[in-house]
Structures are given as structure tokens and as C-alpha cells.
């Protein structure tokens, strides 16, 4: 849902750009405290993986395709601030390096996908995780639900921006965007849960938001050691 040049008016571009710049600046400030020897390479990997995965458009209904967003994946693996930074970086490289997403719409794209689709979605994930029983299953369920919602919220924000810019009335753009992204969001949830499951199985210590004390390998080790 990378918005190209021409869809947004100046007011919307400037307002979303200012909000995005403020939040990314704050995120970068918060991120400083969270960056250490371990998270620097992980952040680089996360950015590279999300960039690559975003290239893989999968077909959805009626001659449309969707692709991975990665906001919730980044936030679950790295936390909201580093995650938001990763998505911002991906969007900047896509706009400047690949002409994907207009430069005048970069602020709006960062707003939709890094702020709404990553940082806000992280707090949804955290809320769900806190409300549900503490288990691996519910951790992954929270991840999947937040991933689906992240795509819905980001596409909803996009529709609001189109409406405010006079490009397409809200009554037209919002249902159309939410309708198609309800399907794309299923892909998002599937990929996110799959990748988080793999990382949890291989290296649960690298999932920043994973806070269940007894992971399976540790339990097995404890049994072996008596």
C-alpha cells in the first residue's frame, strides 16, 4: 500500500510527514537505549528480511496482489521503537532506491506502515498478550491477530488520507481498502506467525517481546540436569 506521488494533497503530505518525523525521531531516541551488541545485527537482518519479503507479492481475489508488511514481525522481534525504525528505513530505501512509494508521500507511508502498522500495532499485540493466558499458543495468537489488524489499520489510515486529500471519498475508499486488505491481512498474519514460530523454536532469546520464563529447551535441559 505504498502511496505514489499524486494521491495526496500538500496539507496531508505535510501533516503526515510532520507526525512521522516526530515519531521516528522519538523512536530513534528510544532505540538508542535498546541497541546493543546483539540487537545491531538483528536489526540489520530484520530490515533485509522485510525488504526481501515485501517483494513477494502473492495473488489475492480478483486480479489483485498483496505483499507482506512486516511491522508486527519487526515489533515482536525487536520491540516497537527499533521495529518502527526498521520499517522506516525499508520505506526510505524503497522510495529512493526503487521508486516504490512517492517521495512526497513518504511521510504518509511512514505514518501508515511504521507508526500505525508497527508501533501502534505493537501496543495492540501487547494488550492482547497481556489479556490472554500466558502460553506460547496465545503469544502466537496475539502476534497473528495484531498482524492482521496492523494491515487493516494501515490501509484504513491510507483511505482516510486519500479522503482528506480529496482523491476518493471516505465512503468509497475505506470499504474498498479494508475489504481487500482483510484478505491480504490473512497473508500477513500467516507469514508473521510462521517466522516468529521459527525464531522462537531456534532462538527464543532473540525475540525481545518473548517473556514466558520456561521455554521448551530450558525445560528439557532442567529435566536432563535433574
Amino acid at each position, binding site marked *: 500500500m505504498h502511496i505514489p506521488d499524486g494521491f495526496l494533497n500538500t496539507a496531508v503530505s505535510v501533516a503526515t510527514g510532520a507526525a512521522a518525523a516526530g515519531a521516528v525521531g522519538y523512536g530513534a531516541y528510544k532505540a538508542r537505549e535498546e541497541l546493543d551488541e546483539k540487537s545491531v545485527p538483528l536489526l540489520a537482518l530484520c530490515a533485509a528480511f522485510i525488504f526481501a519479503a515485501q517483494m*513477494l507479492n502473492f495473488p489475492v481475489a480478483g486480479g489483485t496482489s498483496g505483499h507482506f508488511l512486516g511491522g508486527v514481525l519487526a515489533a515482536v522481534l525487536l520491540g516497537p521503537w527499533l521495529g518502527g525504525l526498521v520499517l522506516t*528505513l525499508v520505506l526510505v530505501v524503497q522510495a529512493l532506491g526503487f521508486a516504490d512509494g512517492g517521495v512526497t508521500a513518504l511521510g504518509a507511508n511512514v505514518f501508515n506502515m511504521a507508526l500505525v502498522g508497527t508501533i501502534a500495532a505493537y501496543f495492540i499485540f501487547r494488550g492482547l498478550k497481556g489479556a490472554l493466558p500466558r502460553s506460547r499458543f496465545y503469544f502466537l495468537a496475539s502476534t497473528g491477530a495484531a498482524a492482521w489488524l496492523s494491515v487493516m489499520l494501515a490501509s484504513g489510515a491510507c483511505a482516510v488520507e486519500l479522503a482528506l486529500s480529496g*482523491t476518493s471519498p471516505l465512503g468509497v475508499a475505506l470499504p474498498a481498502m479494508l475489504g481487500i486488505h482483510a484478505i491480504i491481512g490473512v497473508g500477513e498474519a500467516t507469514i508473521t506467525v510462521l517466522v516468529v514460530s521459527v525464531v522462537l523454536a531456534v532462538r527464543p532469546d532473540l525475540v525481545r517481546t518473548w517473556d514466558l520464563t520456561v521455554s521448551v529447551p530450558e525445560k528439557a535441559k532442567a529435566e536432563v540436569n535433574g
Partner: protein
Amino acid sequence: MEARKKSVYLFVLAGLAVAVTLALLVSPWASSSPDGLEKVAEDKGFLEKAEETEPAWKNAPIPDYAMPGLTKETVDEETGEVVEEPTRLATGLAGLAGTVAIFLIAWGLALVLKKKPPEETGATP
């Protein structure tokens, strides 16, 4: 501690291999249908707004995820005209270049942002 650190690098290396494989070998076979927003723009009749707008940034080195110079001639199914179209190799190489570039940029940015460790001046006795 050293072993732990090494294994993060091992994990990152394995993950990067997966990302590079996806970008280089899988992305050429990705769907080329319009994405959600593009489709909505097409259906609701505002796609022209983007098509009529001159892009604000024209210096993208790899526009539209196609490595420049790698094209093949194909016949457009609708118009019957012969058109130049990027090859699968062009897409794969664009993906490879982007994945590696973003990995390095992200690593560099993270190093710049990272707080310096407390200085060990040895002033304390």
C-alpha cells in the same frame, strides 16, 4: 559470552541467506497483479492522479525493482505491440542488491545510533 555473541552472528547469517534466497530466486516469480491500493485506485478511478503526476524523485538507481539494462521484447497481450519488459534476472538482481544494501545500511545506522559504551578512562584507582 563469546560463544553467545558468535551464535547471534550465525543466526543472522542464516537469516540473511534466507532473505537473499527470497529476493534473488523467489521474487522473480511473485505476482505482478496490482496491489491492494493500486487495485482500489484503478477500480475507483483515481489511478490517473498518480499516472499524470511527474515523480518527485527521478534518480532511483533501480526503478520498479528491475535492474536496468536487462530487458526482453515481448508482445503485449492487450495491444499486440512489442514492448520491452524486464527479465526475471533483472528482478532477482534488483532484489539481491536491495537486500544486501539495506542490510548494510541498517547495520551502519544502528551503529551510529547506538549509545557509546561508558568510557573506560582508568581514572578510578
